[in-house]
């Protein structure tokens, strides 16, 4: 695969269009919700993400966003990945993803742990795009903290 194909794997291009979890939904379950707005001032990528936690698990994630294929696909993949996952485990997943993104290509994501998000491993070789991939994950992290407050 060329560098470009490693970056834009088909699964990423598909998620960029499918946008699982978008648009933002009102939550009417029994859990507590938290919300986070993240903006990358360099390129204008933007996301508002809402997460609900019920019985210690991620009960719902939804978001509105505008941005590049990497940022939108990342939000979509993240939504699928953390649905129903214990809250603490979701935060561990954010940490694992961040470690891969910051590795400059040295750490390959564990597909067993990160699922479709492992497809973003190639992004870590493009430092200018790491923020794009991280945007939704940072928003989730903040939302989960807010939901717990």
């Amino acid at each position, binding site marked *: 695969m*060329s*560098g*470009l194909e490693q*970056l*834009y794997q088909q699964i990423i*291009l598909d998620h*960029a*269009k499918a946008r699982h979890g978008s648009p933002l939904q009102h939550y009417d379950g029994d859990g507590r919700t938290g919300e986070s707005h993240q903006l990358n001032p*360099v*390129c*204008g*990528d*933007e996301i508002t993400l809402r997460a609900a936690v019920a019985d210690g698990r991620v009960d719902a994630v939804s978001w509105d966003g*505008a*941005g*590049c*294929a*990497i940022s939108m696909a990342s939000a979509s993949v993240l939504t699928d990945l953390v649905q129903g996952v214990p809250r603490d485990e979701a935060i561990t997943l954010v940490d694992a993803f961040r470690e891969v993104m910051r590795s400059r290509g040295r750490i390959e994501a564990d597909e067993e742990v990160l699922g479709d998000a492992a497809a973003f491993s190639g992004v870590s070789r*493009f430092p200018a*795009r790491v923020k*794009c991939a991280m945007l939704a994950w940072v928003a989730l992290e903040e939302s989960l903290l807010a939901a717990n407050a």
Partner: protein
Amino acid sequence: MPVVATPATLTPSHAGLTDAEVHRIRNDFPILGTDVGGTPLVYLDSGATSQNPTSVMEAEQEFYEQRNAAVHRGAHSLAVDATDAYEDARAAVARFIGARTRELVWTSNATEGINLVAYAMSNASLGRGGAAAQRFAVGPGDSIVVTEMEHHANLIPWQELAARTGAELRFIPVDDDGALSLEAAAAVITGTTRIVAFSHASNVLGTINPVHELVALAQDVGALTLLDACQSVPHLPVDATSLDVDFLVFSGHKMLGPTGIGALYGRAELLDAMPPFLTGGSMITTVTMERAEYLPAPNRFEAGTQRISQAVALGAAANYLSETGMDRIEAWEGRLGALLVEGLSAIDGVRVLGPGAGVPRIGLAAFDVDGVHAHDVGQFLDDKGIAVRVGHHCAQPLHRRLGLTASTRASTYLYTTTDEVEAVLQAVAQVRPFFGAQ
């Protein structure tokens, strides 16, 4: 009324550079022969920063090897040599823009030049500079006018000046094509207006604004004018005196010079009456513990040890451009700009921002690819060795007006070939299929 270009830019009086000349010129720019991950570099981001010819880099190195000393102080021979080199560069750059030598103030870049004027006006508004400086004072009831297409550098310093002084900030709107309307300008520039600040050539639209008409509107109401010439001085013959603006700013790194150096042109009588912005050493005559007297311009505005080697290198850059011929560069880039706009407009799903083909422009075109974010477009082009700018190009209000948050921008210079323009057109045509945009 649509945008009216100045006569000099409508009809370049000379033939442009030839393909053979451009290929010879490229040999002077070592970086243009480099690769990006094994693919030859196609540099189409000169609107952000230009590349440097060997003569410019050598001028800076030679200064450090043979003439380096602090200027305007010290009696030793090296200091005299360094001062001569520094002032010769000022004369060369002033000549390059049709100004007198003492009308050219060194700055770090255009942004600093605009801030210098805005803060000098702020100081005048506080009474600094005495009665002679009152023509620069602004306050409640006064207005400051910019346009909706300005680079943030020519917007935010005025927002801040308005906030500090209580003056009102107004803007001349652009239409759906990104053009300024002179009727709208006439409604915005009124008797309360103290300064009109606007760009000569747009860094997003590539179009050339009607300087003479806007200056006339400002002069009719006694307002000062400041021209952001960042995208014109490097690419067209610019004569500050005949443009009849009060102030004009540009950056060295966009005109084959190094980073860290730019200039502010100001009419001599204005610079001599304007209070300083940065203060300290080298800009004074007599200093007591209580107060100081200031040198006349340009030194009044050059506090502290200056960017000497960068100034010397910028002088070399101005000489390189003059020897090549600004009218010939303008004609060559006008041709490249037309090729870009015609080629991009012909690609399915691609929209060029601003006026389309047939309107005079510099060698610059920003565009939107339907269904693909600008960052993804830029990444795709980078994979083919093509360097373009993506994002809002420091013009968020203009992008918002055109219904976008970001765009992709290709920009040329005297060393850009028609093959490179062809390469970006071919690559852009592949973008939507690659990303599966419908």
